[in-house]
Structures are given as structure tokens and as C-alpha cells.
């Protein structure tokens, strides 16, 4: 089954993180709250479509596509509180 990456999320879509590929940036993401089982929500994209803004643990962060490619999601779900 094709894995869903965080960068696949469209504005308004959320997901639960299933795995983060180890990279130089993965520890930083962990500090922000992107860990296995946490929920992320895509809030929007600026005019050039990159970086995308995500809601992580209640705060909004802009992350570049190359960073989000390393984060995999279990499924895409519409947002619920």
C-alpha cells in the first residue's frame, strides 16, 4: 500500500503520524511534537505552495516539503477537535 506522506495533506485535512524516517531534521520535528501517534493538520499554503503551514500540538508551523516528506501518516481524516 502506498504510504501517505505529510506533504500529501491538503488544507483542511489532518492525519495521525505513523512513522518518521530518521534524518537530520527528525529530532527537531520531535521537539515540536511530531511523534508517532500525534495529530497534524494542514492549515494552508502560501502563494508558492511551499512551505506549508501545519497545526501541531496547537501551534502553527511552516515546514518545507522536503521536511514533510519524511513524515508518514496512518490515514487522512477531516479535522475534529
Amino acid at each position: 500500500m502506498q504510504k501517505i506522506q505529510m506533504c500529501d495533506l491538503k488544507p483542511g485535512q489532518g492525519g495521525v503520524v505513523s512513522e518518521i524516517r530518521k534524518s537530520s531534521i527528525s529530532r527537531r520535528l520531535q521537539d515540536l511534537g511530531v511523534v508517532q501517534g500525534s495529530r497534524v493538520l494542514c492549515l494552508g499554503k502560501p502563494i508558492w505552495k511551499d512551505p506549508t503551514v501545519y497545526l501541531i500540538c496547537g501551534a502553527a508551523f511552516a515546514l518545507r516539503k522536503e521536511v514533510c516528506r519524511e513524515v508518514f501518516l496512518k490515514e487522512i481524516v477531516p479535522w475534529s477537535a
Partner: protein
Amino acid sequence: MERLTVALAGNPNVGKSSVFNALTGLRQHTGNWAGKTVAVAAGTVETSARSYTLVDLPGTYSLAARSEEEVIARSYLESEDAQLVVVVCDASCLQRSLHLALQCISLHPNVIVCVNLMDEAARLGIQIDLEKLSQLLGVPVVGCMARKKATLQPLLDAMDQMQPKPRTPAIMREAEEIADEAARICRAAVVPSARNPVRRYRTDQFLTGTGAGFLLSMLMMVCMLWVTIFLANRLSDVLSAAFALLNPYLEACFRSAPWWLRGAVLDGVWRVLTWVIAVMLPPMAIFFPLFTILENAGFLPRIALVLDRPFQRCGACGKQALTCCMGIGCNAAGVVGCRIIDSKRERLLAILTNALIPCSGRFPMLAALTAVFFSASSSGNLFEALGLSVLFLLSIALTFAASKLLSSTVLKGDSQGFVLEIPPYRMPQFGTVLVRSILDRTIFVLARAAAVAAPAGLLIWLLANLKAGDTSALTFVSHAFDPVGRALGMDGVILLAFLLGLPANEIVLPLILMGYLTVGTLPENGSLDQIRAVLLSHGWSAETMVCTAVFTLAHWPCSTTAISIWKETKSVKWTAIGIFLPTVIGAFLCFLLHLLFQI
């Protein structure tokens, strides 16, 4: 009275500084700690029971000690100095703040958690059970709204009630474990907002994601410049009139003094001083607060968000947009502010190109030049604003070009992971901002006027009055610079003024004018008509105007900035590049324009 040292830790953007400022008021100072290079702010606050020294640690997302801030925060917490730790958390995103709180709790036995921004959380419909939180964390938890000083009393009470336990060696817990626990605690103690965050992001999506939003931002910039010019001109007129009233009295005082004393003081020092205060100060004093209000409201991260992609194409990162914004206030501050960029290569890029952004010292000169260019009439203000906007856009374009140049030559490398927090918009504290920034800026400029402008004015007067036969030293030197000046579309006097303006850019225009008036004096007051008259009668054309404006944008950084570059890079090579890069760019462009105007 018992004295305790308290470390203030917390994520960036949680209002830690607000808590610090509210508690310590003016009793604070920045200083170095334990020989580290990053300055740490410390202050004192007293209660009836104890006297506390608060140390404001840099904002960090974690104590994993990967960046310089994290290393400083971690090592301070682990040192003997910190007897008490207060972790400031953001009520509207408690889960993330808890990561750091849990790390602190595992490292230090005396922790108080302070949940700030309770009003923001309430506005979003978030409910936090502080009691439950305290139970689950095992430490005292208080809530507050740092903007309202009175709400900090529970924090002070909790600090008073804390009996410091002795330190024991501690290891920090694993990130995954902490993340799990933070999530569990939040599920138990926090009722989340029912509001849809995507709906809340709509304004930002409009501003940053649509063409219309982009145009609106541009319009906002033009408006801001228009307001600045409008108010600054009024203020200039008032100050000029005030000085005009004073002049006769001063001249009366010096009537019986020897000519050289009268000349040196009145025509040299006093004229330049009044010029800088009446003409250069008002734009600075007005633009800076306006800009700070925007910054307060939270617009800057949005600018960085939109500019990240273009910066990436030039080998840099969006955070450079933030340092550019800081550079608008003062290039030296912009250079120091480059510390927010994690990658060393990208930080150097930002440091070396910061001088291409016109600082508040150059802004009045650009404003005066555009005003003269558009022959100020009643609608002249709008064209001035447009002209200034074009110049600002040019400086941004030059920043991109210079970054691209550097990253293709001496600073090659890949761009690294980019993480930028987009905090919610906050209502700017108009009162504090206006008072603080107007006062700070005004006092700073006045002090610099006394320290730099006055001696420079004296020097010019001396040069103009040291005569060997018919020519003065001033004429001699400016003629020497003339060939190079003319090749760049300007002239010797202008170039000399730029050189003498090394200590502070705001004296360049007064020096140009003084250089032209062969007796080395300035017109009575700084009216634009007089400026225009002087410039035109000394051969200024459209070419001179354009080239001088461009050279103002791109020439060597002022001495304070150059020193800051040296301090931040600790390298002669990079400081030299930092000085030469904008100069070469400016000279190249001016030469090109000079050739174009010949056609």
C-alpha cells in the same frame, strides 16, 4: 532577606519576555553568563519574603542541546546557579509547552509551571484544569496573563512558598516518552477548543496565499510609508521653526567671540546638530514605532513565510526576511538578529547582505531625496511614498541577488531543514510600544547626534575654513574624489560625505549640503525647497539623484554594523566581505546607471 536565583525557561513565543518584563520592570540588565557568547537578561523582583534574581533563558523548544540556545538553557539549568525554575507555557498550545516542562522537571527538583496567555485560551474556548495539571505533573502550577501585571501575584506566591530541595544528579527522559506523557496529561487536564483552526487561518491564507492578499500587503507598505512621510514632514516643520527661534539668541551669545569659535560652534557643530534633529530624526522617530507595532501584531513570520521560497532559490532561507526586517530598524541589530538562523552558512548569508536593507539612518535621506525629486507639492506625498516603496523593493531585490551571488561562490551548500513558527496575531500594545520606541529611538538618535554628527560637522567646518591660498582643504579633498564620484554618477562631495558618514548614515545628507556651501555652513532650516535649491545649483541632475539613492542603498555598512559583523563572525575574511560586497554592488550599479544616462 533570603535571596534566590530563578531561571525562566519556555518555548519561543509563549510570552516569556512579557512575564520577565512584568516582574522585573526596569530593574533588568543584559549580561554574559559563564563566559558564553549569547547575552542573557537578568533582573530582580522582591516579595515580602524573598529577593529573587530572575534569569531569562533563551526560548527553546527542547533541552536536547542541539542549538546554541538549547546548550545555554540546558547548561544553566544543570548548573548550581539555578535554584528555582519557572517554566512558562502557552495556554493555547499546552501540549507542546509541556514537552519542555517535563524535560525541566526531570532535570531539576524545584520547578514551577506558569501557564501564560490564559486570556487567549479562554477566547478560543480552551479550558485548563490547573489543579489537575499540578497533580499530574507533580509540581505547582499557576495561570497568568503576563500583560496584566496583577495576574502574576499567584506566581510570586508560588515562588515564595517553594522550599528549594537539594539537587541530585538527573538524566533527561527520552523524547518519545515525554511526548506520550504530554499527550496523556493534556487529554486529562485540558478541554480543547471546539473552534475550527482552518477557519481561523483564513486571514493568513488570504494574505499569504492569494494574489489579492499580496497586493493588499504591498498597499499596506505604501500606506505605512505615506503616513510616515506625512507625519515626519509636519514634525520637521515644527522642529525647524523651533530652532529658527533659538538661532538669534545663540548668535547674540557668540557675537563677541572670536570668529573661529563662533564659526566652529554655530556653523559647524550647531548647524549639523539642528539639521540632524530637525530633518533626520522625525522620519526615524515615526517609522520605527509604526514598524514595531506591526512586529508586535505578529506580521513578520507571515512575511518570512511568503519570502521563504524566493530566498530558497537564492540559497538562503525565509528567516533572512526576519533579519532584513530587523535591519530596517538598524543594520547592526539585524546582524545580531541573524542568530535566529540555525544553519551557519545561511546565517552568514544573512549577515553579509543585511547592509543592503536601508536602516532608519538612511531612510530619512531616501525620503528627502525622493521628496526633492518629485518636487514636493500637495500630492507630492503620495509619489514620495511610491518612490520610497520602489527603493525598498529594489533593496529586497539586491538582497536576493547578493544572496544568490554569495551562495554560488563563497558560500556554497545545501539549504537545511526549515521550521518557522507562525504565532497567532496578537493585539499590539499600542501604548507601551509607542512610548517605548519613540523614547528609545529619540534618545538614541539624539545621543548619536551629539556623539557623531557634532564632531563631523566640526570637521567639515575645519576643512572648509583651512585655506591654503584660495582653496580650502574641503575643496581640495572633494576635487580629489571627483573623478571617481563622477564615474559613479555622483561627484566628489557626495562621495566624501558617504566616507565621512561611516560612523552614522544619517549625517551623509547634511555633510553633502555643507560640502556644497563653500563656507561650510548649512541653510537656516531644513526646508525641502532650500535643499532642492542647493542641490540643483551644484549640478544635481536626475542622474545624480538616482545614483545617490542607489548608492545610499548599497555602500559600506556603518561602523557599528561593521563591528557587529566582526563580533558575530569572528573572522576578518567575512567582515571584509561584509564591507566590500555592498560597496561593490553599489559602485557597479551606479557606474551602470551613469553609462545609461549618457545615452
